[in-house]
């Protein structure tokens, strides 16, 4: 990739995830927790996956083999908070940036003009558009999270690693006289990681050797999706199954055969 098309910001803290695909059962508790936490409105088109607002989506992977060798895996996909995001450079109005300590790609709703260029740029489909006015049925509005703004129709949104929880954790650390830039491992966890019943989602600072993610991300079975195109995601996955790891990136037939031989 051309050097001129890359933006690299070096951060002292790099919030990231390691998702163990071998532990994920595809229960979608992460999806539900995310929707409740981030005030994602009920959709008028619940059966149209491509018109629904979601910040994390669970994909079903198959090894493509018939019974008895058939195997399945589930892959939760939040925003990858790319080290070299495809979206931030293209936004014409600086409504999405990667410039805050922690490396979380921001989304500034009051500035977004809804051109959807960032959606076209993101190969992970991590960005969604508000096709409809957000409407909560009477009574359900009482479940709204007070810390997360509700987005109007006509803007793009995406997973922010529950950024408000990061803010709260920093405030709490300051109140306790601790360094907000050196949060303890569990001081800040997004809703999806908190809700996962099998503990498949581990969250922390990838740069902090005391956080588990920094070690898990270095495992020989850890991988990232579409690493080859140079997006440098801050979300890692883990699986001991070869066929799962092979589905993380595109590769030519000769490359696949080479991997199998080795």
């Amino acid at each position: 990739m051309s050097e001129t098309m890359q933006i690299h910001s070096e951060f002292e803290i790099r919030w990231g995830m390691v998702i163990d695909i071998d532990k994920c059962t595809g229960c979608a508790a992460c999806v539900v927790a995310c929707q409740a936490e981030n005030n994602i409105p009920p959709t008028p088109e619940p059966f149209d996956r491509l018109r629904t607002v979601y910040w994390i989506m669970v994909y079903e992977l198959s090894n493509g083999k018939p019974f008895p060798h058939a195997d399945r895996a589930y892959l939760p996909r939040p925003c990858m908070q790319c080290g070299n995001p495809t979206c931030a450079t293209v936004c014409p109005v600086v409504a999405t940036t990667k410039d805050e300590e922690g490396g979380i790609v921001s989304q500034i709703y009051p500035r977004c003009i809804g051109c959807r260029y960032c959606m076209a740029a993101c190969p992970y489909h991590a960005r969604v558009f508000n096709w409809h006015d957000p409407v909560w049925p009477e009574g359900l509005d009482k479940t709204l999270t007070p810390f997360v703004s509700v987005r109007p129709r006509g803007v793009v949104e995406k997973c922010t690693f529950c950024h408000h929880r990061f803010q709260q954790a920093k405030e709490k650390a300051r109140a306790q006289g601790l360094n907000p830039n050196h949060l303890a491992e569990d001081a800040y966890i997004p809703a999806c990681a908190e809700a996962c019943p099998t503990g498949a989602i581990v969250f922390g600072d990838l740069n902090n050797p005391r956080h588990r993610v920094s070690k898990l991300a270095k495992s020989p079975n850890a991988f990232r999706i579409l690493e080859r195109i140079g997006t440098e995601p801050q979300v890692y996955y883990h699986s001991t199954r070869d066929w799962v790891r092979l589905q993380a990136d595109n590769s030519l037939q000769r490359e696949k055969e080479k991997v199998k031989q080795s």
Partner: protein
Amino acid sequence: MIDAKFIPEGVQRCSLPKFLAWLVFLGLILLWGVAGVGLIYWRGLGVTGLDNYFGFGLWIVFDLVVIALGAGAFFSGFLKYILRIDQLKNIINLAVIVGFLCYSGAMMILALDIGQPLRAWFGYWHPNVHSMLTEVIFCITCYLMVLSIEFIPIILENRQLYKIRLINRLAHNFHVFMPLFAAAGTFLSFFHQGSLGGMYGVLFGRPFAFREGFFIWPWTFFLFILSAIASGPVFIMLIATAVEKLSGRRLVDFNVKSLLGKISGFLLAIYMFFKLLDTWAWAAGVLPEMGFTFDEMFNQVYGKWLLWTELGICGVLPAVLLIVPALRNIPALLYIASLLTCAGIVINRFVFTVQNLAIPVMPFDQWATYIPNWTEWSTSLMVVAYSAIIISLAYRYLPVFPQERRLNT
């Protein structure tokens, strides 16, 4: 006729009732589009056929196509005022009008397409200098202003308006400064035509569109400029021919049309040379580097036939037809070649917008298919109807074609 005194001297026009009937027909199409606009602004973009995979759809294809075809305005202006190709004075008024309509039409569509139209000015207030789209926003708004300034003297030349001394002088002065506006238009249009291509070329997460390039400009930047200036001149010629067929009068000498065909032909040949090179480099270099094969870029819906049609039937073939004088000087072949050239641009902008987004990039994802619905069609046709109305009014009341009187005596 009641409006006879407003019709340019020495030319014939159809009766007013016939003209009004034509306007009513166009007005009905326009109204259908206005209904679509109303629904979109009332209910939001949820009423369209767009979705989270196809954030760009028919509207962006339409915008890219009309902006490319509207390049005839800046390029004809460049050839007429800067390179001094005098014969083009016979088509330059129409080129300006068509350019104005293409750009104003594109702006109307963009005002619908963005989710927050009231924030459209944020492109100036919070500009991201790294984004190709920011440059597009700057240039198309500035160029629309230039085109409006270029359109004004044509309106001022209306028979009745021109009698007013102040307007007469004003129109004359506009003409004196026209080379300046033509130069400004060339500069602005050149860059945003390129940036529209650059918009796709920089998408390094999209294997269909991504290209390496020169400094900050991916190769698509240059290819979009070349394809726009190759198709713009023949598009103006086709519009002139359509007005001729509808009005039953000769408006532009065939020599001028042939000249426009020749200009387009040579530019198309240059474009095709680089486009073929680019396609080969993409298939043999960019795709394998990203882990993709050429075959993976196509499926049953978005098939290879689109590529072969674009490169062959709508690329190499019209280039040959337009370059060889013996073929170009046969009117039917000139028109067919011109139509094919424009169709090639439509296919090119379509595949870069829609096919690009349909391709699954994550290996476990699936192909998607986009079908625009009536709200997108009606609003796009609304712009076509609006353009037809303005051209009809201009043809009837303004001296758009300097050769008309001579050709019809």
